[in-house]
């Protein structure tokens, strides 16, 4: 009887030790991985700053040729400010997507403005330089490594046993720079 209880105690102790070792190892590993994903978030922030600067330049030219209360200017300005704020990544991603469309629409509207048509320099900005910069900044944001890293991290932490332990101990999946999916509209 005594022998059996000692064996049981030893088994429980061993299992507890093994679990503790695995949990600690898993936590350490996945929190390090998470830190690396967060580091690439810095690169994405740099790209978003670049995007904001390009949008600011478009607004600078727009302010010379369109009325201050122009609806497109207001929308673009609002989304540009969203990129700078402390909003969640999905909100910023949605603002970034809207910016691509609205800033292009603003440039198209500017290109038709008589004052731009008659101004060689601003025509060059509106028809060549700024659209190209807008496109470049969009692809830079798209190609920022953050999303790939976050997606890979989330997949791996979800698939492994140590990942499950790490999640149990508080390592959260990384938030992706993607707009929230639109809610399904029921007919």
């Amino acid at each position, binding site marked *: 009887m005594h022998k059996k209880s000692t064996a049981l105690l030893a088994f429980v102790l061993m299992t507890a030790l093994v679990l503790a070792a695995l949990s600690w190892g898993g936590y350490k590993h996945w929190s390090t991985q998470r830190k690396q994903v967060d580091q690439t978030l810095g690169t994405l922030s740099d790209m978003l700053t670049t995007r904001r600067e390009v949008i600011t330049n478009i607004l600078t030219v727009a302010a010379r040729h369109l009325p201050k209360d122009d609806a497109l200017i207001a929308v673009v300005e609002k989304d540009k400010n969203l990129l700078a704020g402390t909003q969640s990544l999905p909100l910023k991603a949605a603002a970034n997507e809207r910016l691509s469309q609205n800033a292009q629409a603003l440039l198209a509207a500017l290109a038709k403005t008589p004052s731009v048509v008659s101004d060689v*320099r601003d*025509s060059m900005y509106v028809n060549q330089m700024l659209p190209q910069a807008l496109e470049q900044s969009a692809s830079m944001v798209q190609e920022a490594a953050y999303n790939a890293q976050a997606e890979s991290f989330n997949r791996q932490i979800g698939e492994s046993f140590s990942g499950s332990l790490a999640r149990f101990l508080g390592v959260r999946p990384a938030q992706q720079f993607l707009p929230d999916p639109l809610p399904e509209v029921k007919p």
Partner: protein
Amino acid sequence: MKNRMFLCVCLLMAFVILGSANAQEVLVVRDSAGVLGAATLKDARALVSLVEESTDITLAVETRHFLGGAEVSAYAQRLLEETSDPSNTMLLLMVIGEEDYALAAGSGAAKLLNPAARETLLSTQFRSPFLARDYDRALSAFLSRTADQLAAATGKSIDQEGLFGQVKAPTPAPTSAPQSTGPYKRVSIFDFNSILGEQLKPTSIPQTQPENQREDKGLSLGSIVLIGIVLSMFFGKKNSGRGGCGCGPLGWIAGVFGASKIFGWRR
């Protein structure tokens, strides 16, 4: 002998490197926006050299299309601080697309030209042609008059004969601008940084883990051996009184190793 030759080669290389670094520093008139004529650039650089030789003050010029929302005076000040000798430098920043400009001066330069004098120079020589988009005339008039005033302040003379003698006709637009009619040809390459406040630098994205970070592989070999020994101590046969080969824990170790594979404790 060989050592001496090696030393000579090293010294020669050092001089070449230093020489090229200095040559880059001399180019203080930087037309990132591409709005200045070649003749203006050449004369501006020549005048900057003359001013530097006579007064020890460096005149620097930078043109940009946009600053991406950065404040022009603060940006000019930051550019000034990035020069090789900020205290003896005066930097003119021309922001073409924002129709704005700023003049930043280091402490040494400010002693020779006080803020009021600098403001007067800008308003009388620079502002009107700049806003009329005659950038060549704006720059040449500003540099020429500034050189005169710096020479007067230091008691030196600067011979400007032949410089800016033939200023180009007013240039209403950047040199790369297309005609206002007809389809626009797409500019394939432009200096992306000339429209940004913060210049983009190559970023390093951590792709691999540092070597000193251990990868998580569940149970390590050491842990398996230790667990095997502990298990054999508790559950192994009692060999007291009988001699054994001492390899009793090996079975337990192999067992733990197998169990760790089966249950995925070890990847």
